[in-house]
């Protein structure tokens, strides 16, 4: 069969479709977005009626996928690493309820923070939930693990996690496909109480989860994804997890690795294989992209005299993504390097597009705030976060999705009046609405800007959940109509916009201002599609 040229993300999507997926649930987030987008574009997925619409946030996505699994059908939920924080309540509890139809949770981590607020390692969540984790080292494994993962999940009635990092998510390679499977039919859980986590039932379910740990470990011990490779030089053994295995092998393209290697791509850790390599070698070098999870674990459980090298002892930098050069240095190979970057090269940070509606919103807000002291604008995550950079320098926070509204309220509670929140339309429906309810209930003296550009722009222009309905949502939550203002953020309306903002800042209570104008990227996109339709 001809190979498909797929991103790691796309390999996961194709593997799921071929395995008989019935629904994918997700909220966009780099580097996970392309998984769902691939299913949305797939003709086969459309023919098979696979659900692929975006969810409002990662928690609703996780719960909806669990609901589909309850019916016996195969479901997948995808998110970026910080999305798992949002979904963590249903995620941890889904390990207790267990799955019925196969359930795969994909978490895409972003070491080096290419597009994220942190570089947290989702394997900790998988370990915390006590579920098996699969960590592909390449695109083919990403496909195969997903394809086979549903069966694994059904065999033990347990959700499984697939964890990958940006580099694999966004790198293409040839992938061999397996035979297309039928979708499952609806078949509800045999035990109708399985998903009822009343304490008495939850205790039983938790025991089942604990009892299964030995099975999961046995699976890891026998997994084709975990392998021990012999080596003559026992002065050091190397444990390489997921993609780190490739960086290691890259250093042995022309010669053979003299050291024993244990490749790990399936967890819980295969303890016997770990014991084997650590009893044979004096030192163990651990290569893992992310936090030192395996390193910390073996540091504690094995022979006290064993020397463990890795991120915690400085052999590998404590933070940031791995690459072939870092690994070369750790194994003592000569490092090649080209010329240094000439001094005249300057950084080119991302910036708001020329003509972006956010620019006019911030110009107006900056002017309206001139009469107050600085440092009162709590913002959120999206294109508008770029207003932290010159020439705008408008915002003072960006923490997690939805935090603008609630942090502004906290600051106002403390006496910082007025406090301002700035949130995008998609972020608002993701997790800003609940915070707004808090502010409504206390009529907090904050001014909330919902920047409505009709799209989830930062992640590439996905549908936004409440386009055209934001005003009614705010009124429904209880915002007073006289303090709900819609603006058109354009230069020609600058003066009147500044005036409206000033009035609301001066009001000692809650106001919501919704600057409404389409992202220019969508305008380009819709122009393109109308052109295509005309053709």
């Amino acid at each position, binding site marked *: 069969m001809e190979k498909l040229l797929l991103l790691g993300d796309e390999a996961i999507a194709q593997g799921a479709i071929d395995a008989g997926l019935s629904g994918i649930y997700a909220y966009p987030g780099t580097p996970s977005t392309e998984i769902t987008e691939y299913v949305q574009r797939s003709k086969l997925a459309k023919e098979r009626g696979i659900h692929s619409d975006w969810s409002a946030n990662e928690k609703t996505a996780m719960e909806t996928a669990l609901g589909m699994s309850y019916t016996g059908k195969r479901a997948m939920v995808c998110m970026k690493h910080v999305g798992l924080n949002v979904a963590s309540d249903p995620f941890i509890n889904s390990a207790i309820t267990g799955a019925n139809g196969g359930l795969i949770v994909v978490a895409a981590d972003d070491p080096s923070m290419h597009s994220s607020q942190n570089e947290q390692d989702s394997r900790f969540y998988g370990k915390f939930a006590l579920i098996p984790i699969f960590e592909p080292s390449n695109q083919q494994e990403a496909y195969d693990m997903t394809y086979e993962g549903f069966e694994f999940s059904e065999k033990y009635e347990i959700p499984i996690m697939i964890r990958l990092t940006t580099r694999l998510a966004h790198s293409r390679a*040839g992938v061999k496909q397996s035979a297309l499977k039928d979708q499952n039919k609806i078949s509800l859980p045999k035990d109708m109480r399985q998903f009822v986590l009343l304490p008495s039932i939850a205790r039983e379910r938790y025991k089942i989860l604990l009892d299964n740990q030995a099975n999961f470990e046995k699976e890891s011990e026998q997994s084709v994804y975990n392998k021990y490779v012999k080596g003559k030089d026992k002065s050091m053994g190397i444990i390489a997890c997921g993609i780190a295995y490739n960086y290691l*092998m*890259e250093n042995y393209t022309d010669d053979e690795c003299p050291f024993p290697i244990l490749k790990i791509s399936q967890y819980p850790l295969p303890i016997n294989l770990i014991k084997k390599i650590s009893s044979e070698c004096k030192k163990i070098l651990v290569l893992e992209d992310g936090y030192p999870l395996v390193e910390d674990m073996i540091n504690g459980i094995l022979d006290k005299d064993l020397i463990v090298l890795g991120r915690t002892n400085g052999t590998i930098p404590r933070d940031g993504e791995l690459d072939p050069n870092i690994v070369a240095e750790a194994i003592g190979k000569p490092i090649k390097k080209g010329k240094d*970057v000439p001094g005249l090269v*300057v950084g*080119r940070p*991302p910036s708001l597009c020329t003509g972006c509606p956010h620019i006019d919103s911030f110009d107006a807000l900056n002017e309206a705030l001139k009469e107050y002291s600085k440092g009162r604008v709590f913002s959120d995550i999206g294109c508008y976060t770029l207003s932290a950079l010159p020439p705008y320098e408008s915002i003072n926070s960006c923490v997690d999705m939805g935090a603008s509204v609630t942090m502004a309220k906290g600051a106002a509670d403390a006496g910082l009046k007025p406090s301002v929140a700035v949130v995008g339309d998609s972020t608002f429906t993701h997790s800003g609405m609940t915070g707004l309810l808090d502010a409504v209930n206390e009529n907090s003296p904050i001014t909330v800007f919902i920047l409505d550009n009709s799209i989830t722009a930062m992640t*590439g222009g996905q549908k936004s959940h409440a386009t055209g309905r934001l005003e009614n949502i705010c009124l429904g939550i209880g915002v007073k109509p006289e303090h709900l203002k819609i603006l058109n953020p354009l230069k020609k309306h600058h003066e009147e916009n500044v005036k409206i903002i000033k009035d609301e800042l001066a009001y000692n209570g809650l106001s919501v201002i919704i600057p409404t104008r389409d992202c220019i990227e969508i305008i380009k996109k819709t122009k393109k599609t109308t052109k295509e339709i005309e053709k």
Partner: protein
Amino acid sequence: MKIDIILAGVGGQGIISIAAAIGYAAVESNLYLKQSEVHGMSQRGGEIQSHLRVSDKEVHSDLTPQGSADMIISVEPMESLRYLPWLSPDGWLITNTKPFINVPNYPDINLVLKEIESFPNHITLDADDIARKLGSARSANIVMLGAASPFIEIPYEKLENGIRGIFSRKGDKIIKQNLDSMMAGKEFTKNYLSETSKV
């Protein structure tokens, strides 16, 4: 056979299309390929790069090790210099000379070009100008692919198929414009090499 290429440019300049065309050609030639791309935040006018690795043997790492790339193909002159640590000492620096200025402290373009020309193996051309003269202003990226094509050990016809493949949905006119752009880039390099009798 093994080719490691670093593609460089600014978000929106179409370097992913260059990567896709070479990728298409590599797969059609039954070669192994790994191609890492930058998606996400940097696409908003930031610096972006793609590592493209083609070989007749399995490719392990998605990232090219430093000091070993055979060439840097850049759609923007300053960006071509940002990835010098990856270029092998005998590698080629192939770049568009037309600057994309979206930062206030962009260096003097003459100094940038001087720096590029100080590199023994370099090809510099105004790909925007060539594309515009062909009536296809948006295909400067494909002109750059053409300029690099003499150094890419994949038959030129396969690269042409790559162009047909990636633009198949856009219609025959766009395909032809891009094929012409690639050819113009290729001719530029051929002429340059024969004038300087480098190869």
